[in-house]
C-alpha cells in the first residue's frame, strides 16, 4: 500500500445508488493537508458538493463515511470512523464518530472513505473487499434488526476474511429522525444518520480488508516511538490505566456519574433537578457489581487496538427482561433511561439500551424525549390519548421501555412522538412545552445540566450539530475537578470552549483516534503520530491546531449557508430563566448572551455568529466566503 500517500490510502469510493455505480477516485491530497481526514475531510466534501437547502432525506443529500490518517494504524485507539451528512433532525451539519473495527477494515481494504449519493430503487447493501466494491440486493435483509443483519452478512462473507458491517435497523428503514447506524453494537448515533441511510435504501456496508497497520505509516521508527509514549501515558493515568484499576477501565464511561451528580449536574426528570437521589442504584459501580460480565470473559468486545477497553457487556438475569444482553449501557444511556426518566431499575435501563441498538436508534435522544413527554404527561399537557394508553409517568420503568420499543418502529402516536425527537414533539404538543423541550438546533441535550456548568451551556449552544457534550467537554474541569474551573462563573469559558472545540476537531475527530485517549495524552502527541503516519510537517502545534479552527469555521459556514445564526445558538427557557435547584450552582441560570458575545469575538465572527470574510481568508477558506458572503459584501 505504500506509495505517494501515507497515513491515507489515497483513494475514496464514490457510490451512486440511483445509477448503481461504484467508482474509485483519488483523495485530494491538498485537502487532506488542510482538513486532515474524518470530520475535516467530510466537511470539505459536503460543503462543496451539497447545495444550500438540500432535503436531508432526499436523493441529493450525501453520506460520507471517513476514516482518519491514524485509523487502522498502531496508534492506540486508532479505530474510529466518522459519518458526515446534513442532519434530517436539525437541518444542520452532522458528524458522528464510532469505534469498533469497521473503520480499520475499510482502511485495510484500501479506502479512506466512501461518499454515498443518490437513492437506490430497492433495498441495497454495499460490499467492499480489498479494492473491490459492488452493490448487492438487500431485500432479504430489509426489516431485520441490526443484530440479525450483522450476523447474516458476516455469515455471508465469512470466507473473505473478517467482514465488518455497519448497518441500519427498522428505525432507519422507517426514516425515524433519531435513527442511528450501528456497527458491532456501537452507534453512529446522533442526529439521524440512520434515517439518511434508510432514505437511500442502503441497509448496510460490509467491508473486508487484508491490509496491515504498518502498511499505512510513512516513518515507522517515529511512529513506534510515539505509540510507545502514548501507551505509557495511558498506562500511567489514574483514569485510563488497567494496572491502576482506572475508573474508565473498571466502571466504564459511567464512572463519572457520581461526580457529576455530586456537583448538581446530573439532569433529573427532564432537567427539573440536577441531582438524582438514587445515584447509588445506577452509577458505574452498581452496573459493574450487578450486571456486567467479568472483563476477562469471552463476552467483552473492546474496540480494535484499544488499551483502555471501556466497553462492558451487561446480562440481565432476572425479572421481566431476563435474558437481555447488551453492550454497555454507557454513561449517557444510563442517564437517558435513568435519571432523565426518574428510573433506577438497572434491568430496565439495560433493556432500553438493548432495544435502541436492536432497532438502531439513538439512546440519548430517545431517553431525552421520553423524559420530556413524562413531564408533559404529569403536567396534564398530554394524556393517555396521546400516549396510546401508556401511563407515562416519571419512574414508570415499564412505560419507559414500552415507549422505546414503540419508537423503534415509529409505532402509533407515542412511537412517532418519541422517534422523531423532542423539538417536533414539543411543537406538536405546544401549550408552553417548548420552554422545557431540552434541545439546541433540534438535537436533544445529553447528560450534563448546563446551569451547573456555564461552559457546558456555551458548548451546547454553539455546537455545529446541536446540543453535544463533546465539542468540547468542559464538564471535567467544571464538575470533576481536573485543572478546576469554577462552574458558576463565565470567566474564561469562551476561550476554553474555543480552544477545546478546535483541538477536538483536528486531533480527535479528524485523526481517527478516540476522544477518550485525550484523558491520557494531549494534542501534541497526536500531532507527532499524524506526522509520523502521513509525513505532513507542522511548524508547531499551533499550525496543527489551526486545522481544527479551519474545520470548525467550515462547519459553521455550512450552517450559516443553511440559514443558522445566533438565534439558533440557543438554549431552552428552562436553562435561561428557571434558576437551578441544587448544588453550588443553585439559583443560577446560564448567562448565554454574555458568553456568546465573547465567544464570537474570539472566533473572529460577527455578532450574529457568522465567520467574517477576513477570518475565512486567514484560514484559506476563500471558497467558503463566496458562498456565505457573496462576491461583495459581508453578513452582519
Amino acid at each position: 500500500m505504500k506509495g505517494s500517500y501515507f497515513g491515507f490510502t489515497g483513494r475514496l469510493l464514490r457510490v451512486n445508488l440511483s445509477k448503481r455505480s461504484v467508482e474509485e477516485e483519488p483523495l485530494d491530497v491538498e485537502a487532506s493537508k488542510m482538513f486532515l481526514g474524518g470530520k475535516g475531510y467530510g466537511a470539505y466534501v459536503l460543503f462543496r458538493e451539497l447545495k444550500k437547502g438540500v432535503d436531508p432525506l432526499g436523493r441529493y443529500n450525501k453520506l460520507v463515511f471517513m476514516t482518519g490518517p491514524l485509523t487502522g494504524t498502531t496508534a492506540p485507539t486508532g479505530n474510529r470512523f466518522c459519518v458526515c451528512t446534513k442532519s434530517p433532525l436539525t437541518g444542520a451539519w452532522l458528524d458522528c464518530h464510532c469505534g469498533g473495527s469497521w473503520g480499520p477494515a475499510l482502511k485495510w481494504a484500501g479506502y479512506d472513505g466512501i461518499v454515498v449519493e443518490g437513492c437506490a430503487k430497492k433495498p441495497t447493501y454495499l460490499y467492499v473487499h480489498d479494492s473491490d466494491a459492488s452493490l448487492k440486493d438487500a431485500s432479504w435483509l430489509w426489516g431485520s434488526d441490526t443484530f440479525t443483519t450483522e450476523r447474516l452478512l458476516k455469515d455471508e462473507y465469512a470466507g473473505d476474511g473478517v467482514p465488518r458491517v455497519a448497518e441500519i435497523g427498522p428505525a432507519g428503514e422507517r426514516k425515524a429522525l433519531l435513527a442511528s447506524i450501528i456497527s458491532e453494537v456501537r452507534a453512529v448515533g446522533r442526529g439521524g444518520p440512520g434515517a439518511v441511510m434508510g432514505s437511500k435504501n442502503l441497509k448496510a456496508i460490509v467491508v473486508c480488508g487484508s491490509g496491515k497497520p504498518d502498511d499505512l505509516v510513512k516513518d515507522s521508527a517515529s511512529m513506534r516511538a510515539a505509540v510507545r509514549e502514548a501507551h505509557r501515558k495511558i498506562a500511567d493515568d489514574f483514569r485510563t490505566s488497567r494496572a491502576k484499576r482506572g475508573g474508565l477501565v473498571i466502571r466504564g464511561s459511567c464512572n463519572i456519574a457520581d461526580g457529576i451528580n455530586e456537583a448538581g449536574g446530573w439532569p433529573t426528570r427532564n432537567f427539573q433537578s440536577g441531582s438524582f437521589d438514587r445515584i447509588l442504584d445506577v452509577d458505574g459501580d452498581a452496573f459493574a457489581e450487578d450486571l456486567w460480565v467479568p472483563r476477562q470473559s469471552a463476552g467483552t468486545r473492546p474496540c480494535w487496538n484499544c488499551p483502555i477497553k471501556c466497553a462492558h457487556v451487561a446480562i440481565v438475569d432476572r425479572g421481566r427482561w431476563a435474558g437481555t444482553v447488551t453492550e454497555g449501557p454507557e454513561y449517557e444511556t444510563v442517564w437517558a433511561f435513568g435519571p432523565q426518566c426518574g428510573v433506577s431499575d438497572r434491568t430496565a435501563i439495560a433493556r432500553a439500551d438493548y432495544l435502541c441498538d436492536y432497532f438502531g436508534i439513538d439512546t440519548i435522544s430517545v431517553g431525552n424525549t421520553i423524559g420530556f413527554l413524562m413531564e408533559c404527561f404529569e403536567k396534564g399537557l398530554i394524556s393517555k390519548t396521546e400516549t396510546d394508553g401508556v401511563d407515562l409517568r416519571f419512574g414508570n420503568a415499564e412505560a419507559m421501555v414500552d415507549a422505546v420499543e414503540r419508537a423503534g418502529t415509529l409505532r402509533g402516536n407515542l412511537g412517532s412522538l418519541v422517534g422523531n425527537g423532542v423539538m417536533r414533539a414539543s411543537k406538536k404538543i405546544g401549550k408552553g412545552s417548548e420552554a422545557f423541550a431540552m434541545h439546541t438546533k433540534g438535537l436533544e441535550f445529553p447528560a450534563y445540566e448546563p446551569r451547573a456548568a456555564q461552559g457546558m451551556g456555551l458548548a451546547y449552544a454553539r455546537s455545529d450539530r446541536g446540543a453535544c457534550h463533546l465539542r468540547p467537554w468542559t464538564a471535567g474541569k467544571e464538575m470533576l475537578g481536573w485543572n478546576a474551573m469554577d462552574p458558576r462563573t463565565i470567566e474564561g469559558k469562551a476561550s476554553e470552549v474555543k480552544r477545546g472545540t478546535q483541538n477536538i476537531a483536528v486531533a480527535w475527530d479528524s485523526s481517527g483516534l478516540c476522544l477518550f485517549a485525550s484523558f491520557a495524552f494531549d494534542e501534541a502527541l497526536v500531532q507527532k503520530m499524524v506526522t509520523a503516519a502521513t509525513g505532513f510537517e507542522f511548524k508547531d502545534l499551533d499550525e496543527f491546531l489551526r486545522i481544527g479552527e479551519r474545520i470548525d469555521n467550515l462547519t459553521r459556514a455550512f450552517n450559516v449557508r443553511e440559514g443558522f445564526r445566533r438565534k439558533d445558538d440557543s438554549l431552552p427557557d428552562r436553562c435561561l430563566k428557571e434558576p437551578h435547584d441544587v448544588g453550588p450552582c443553585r439559583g443560577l441560570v446560564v448567562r448565554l448572551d454574555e458568553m456568546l458575545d465573547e465567544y464570537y469575538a474570539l472566533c473572529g465572527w460577527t455578532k450574529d455568529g457568522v465567520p467574517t470574510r477576513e477570518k475565512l481568508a486567514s484560514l484559506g477558506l476563500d471558497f467558503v466566503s463566496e458562498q456565505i458572503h457573496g462576491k461583495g459584501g459581508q453578513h452582519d
Partner: protein
Amino acid sequence: MSPSRSTAKVVSMIRVRVRAFAQLGRALGHEFDVRLRSGSDVGDLLRLLQGRIKGRSKLISSGGAIPPGLSVLLNGLSVQLSAGSRTVLSEGDVVSILPASAGG
C-alpha cells in the same frame, strides 16, 4: 497543699457529612458524619479517613496533598478551587470523595 484544680479545655467541634463512592464507598461506607475539631481542614479529614482504610486506597500524600487518583468536592465544588487539602471545613459541610474519573 491542696491539689490544683484542673480546668477542662472546651474543644469546639464541627460535624461534616462525608459521601464516598466506588471502592472508597465500599471501604468507608457511602454516607456518614464525622466530627472534627473546629478549624480542621480537608487534609485533616482525609488523614482521619485514611486511618480507617489503611493502605487500601491512598487518600492523602505524605506531603499532605490530595493524590492525583482522588477527586474531592466540598459542597459540590472541587477543593482545587479553594485551597486544596488546606481548605478549612465548616459545620454542616458535605465532602464528596471519589476516585479520579473520566468518560462521558
